[in-house]
């Protein structure tokens, strides 16, 4: 085999491998479309962030005495609770399927919702430790203001947030139980929350109609409450609107998600697809 033939052979192999991956990716059409929209969410986030940074009202729209660093650190640290809540339930379900323990778990005296709830405790505990470390580094090295924060209020907001987010997580796990892959619930909630939830900029920089949309997602109340408690030193009374919003989400989402999950579980017991990937 001469050098030219050898090079052509390698190029052909590379082309075949590329074509293999493209064909597999193309077979998941929904994922293809979702990725295009994911890019839109990312671009929109950067657009609103730049609008906020260039805005003359930058300082006035931040909580009193807190710079943008503290504002963004709280946003980033606590946005992760939403991500963990959305992924932890479906992750534990996927893991149990993969390591072959799902059927063995399901024939015990413990219901699947309890197993999923228990499986979410460690990820939340780990995240709380990580958040503490985030804030600790921020305070130790970069002047993040820890003093004067309403910590009991922050813990209350965080607890209510975890309940509200968990409702969304259980809905997401229900989807996975029935449809096995791809998850528009996760995708829509995380994407929308990252744009309108106030993670990197206050929702006041959004157009009016997006500010209305923001009122219909729990992360908005969670981040508002968290910033008010930690950075704004808000009293319990002042935190009440955020807390009430989160409790309302939890009161609606948790029963709905448990009912949906029960239906999804029953459905898989009828179709025999409980352990399918």
């Amino acid at each position, binding site marked *: 085999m001469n050098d030219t033939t050898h090079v052509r052979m390698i190029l052909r192999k590379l082309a075949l491998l590329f074509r293999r991956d493209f064909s597999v990716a193309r077979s998941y*059409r*929904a994922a293809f479309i979702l990725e295009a929209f994911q890019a839109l969410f990312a671009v929109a986030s950067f657009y609103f962030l730049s609008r906020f940074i260039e805005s003359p009202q930058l300082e006035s729209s931040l909580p009193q005495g807190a710079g943008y660093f503290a504002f963004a650190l709280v946003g980033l640290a606590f946005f992760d609770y939403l991500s963990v809540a959305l992924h932890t339930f479906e992750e534990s379900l996927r893991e149990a399927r993969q*390591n*072959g*323990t799902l*059927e*063995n*778990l*399901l*024939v*015990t*005296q*413990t219901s699947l919702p309890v*197993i999923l709830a228990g499986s979410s405790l460690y990820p939340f505990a780990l995240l709380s430790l990580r958040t503490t470390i985030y804030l600790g580094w921020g305070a130790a090295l970069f002047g993040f203001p820890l003093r004067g924060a309403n910590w009991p209020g922050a813990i209350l907001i965080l607890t209510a947030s975890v309940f509200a987010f968990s409702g969304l997580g259980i809905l997401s796990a229900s989807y996975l139980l*029935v*449809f096995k892959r791809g998850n528009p619930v996760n995708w829509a909630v995380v994407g929308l929350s990252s744009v309108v939830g106030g993670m990197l900029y206050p929702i006041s920089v959004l157009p009016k109609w997006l500010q209305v949309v923001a009122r219909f997602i729990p992360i908005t109340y969670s981040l508002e409450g968290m910033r008010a408690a930690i950075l704004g030193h808000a009293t319990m009374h002042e935190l009440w609107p955020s807390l009430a919003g989160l409790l309302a989400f939890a009161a609606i989402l948790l029963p709905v998600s448990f009912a949906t999950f029960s239906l999804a579980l*029953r*459905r898989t*017991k*009828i*179709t*025999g697809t*409980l352990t399918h990937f």
Partner: protein
Amino acid sequence: MNTFALSVENVEKYFPPAASGWRALLHPVSRQTVPALRGISFELNHGEVMAVVGANGAGKSTLLRILTTLLIPTRGRAHVCGFDVAREPAKVRLQIGYHTGADACFYSRLSGRENLTLFAGLNNLSAEETTWRIAELTDLFDLGPLLDRQVRTLSTGNIHRLGLARAMLHQPSVLLLDEPTRSLDPLAAAEFRRFLLDQIVARRGTAVLFASHSLAEVEQLAGRVAVLDGGRLLGCDTPAGLAAGAGAETLEQSLEILTRRAAQGPQ
């Protein structure tokens, strides 16, 4: 009052046709038209061992999954120790131990003891009960040297012994085994069968229903054999009874004759 360990009355199971992608999304509730079990009826007495045999796709695993409450039958009723599998799944799960021949069925990075402790807790055993049950099962299953090793370091045979120990943690009345010796070598399989008969059936009086492809295993373990083919029960009798009914000399011949007759349809 239902006094059988298991009773299955006219159980039918139909699955919806497989669907994926947008079709699955747009029609999540399609009609169940693919038959897996058709009109299955039999009983299993306490302390009895029965085998379910049949070709791949005959319905053996579907039947076991219905009895473990992992599937809901389309029609008919099944009871475990008098409890309805569809209406009283929690009570049924209290009565059954379930073990499949799959190699991956534990948390491989946890030790055998940690796995057993977890599953004991999930089966409502208190910390004290868990300790003495694990000690008892360690003696019974000779698990001593294995118990504190990570499951991923155990041989397939030892994982199956651990699996049986897990299935017996809450002292179930009925043991359901799906191809329990599927991935065992002949020696380990023989040891497993001896163990099942001596320690679980003879000593504990536990009723056992197991699915298997090994007719030698079936003849050695089972008092009665249920023959499934295409979701139908072709016969349920002792190996000798099946042979006599089919005019055959061995269990293997009986199965051949019964499935051939079923394929030819009613004369």
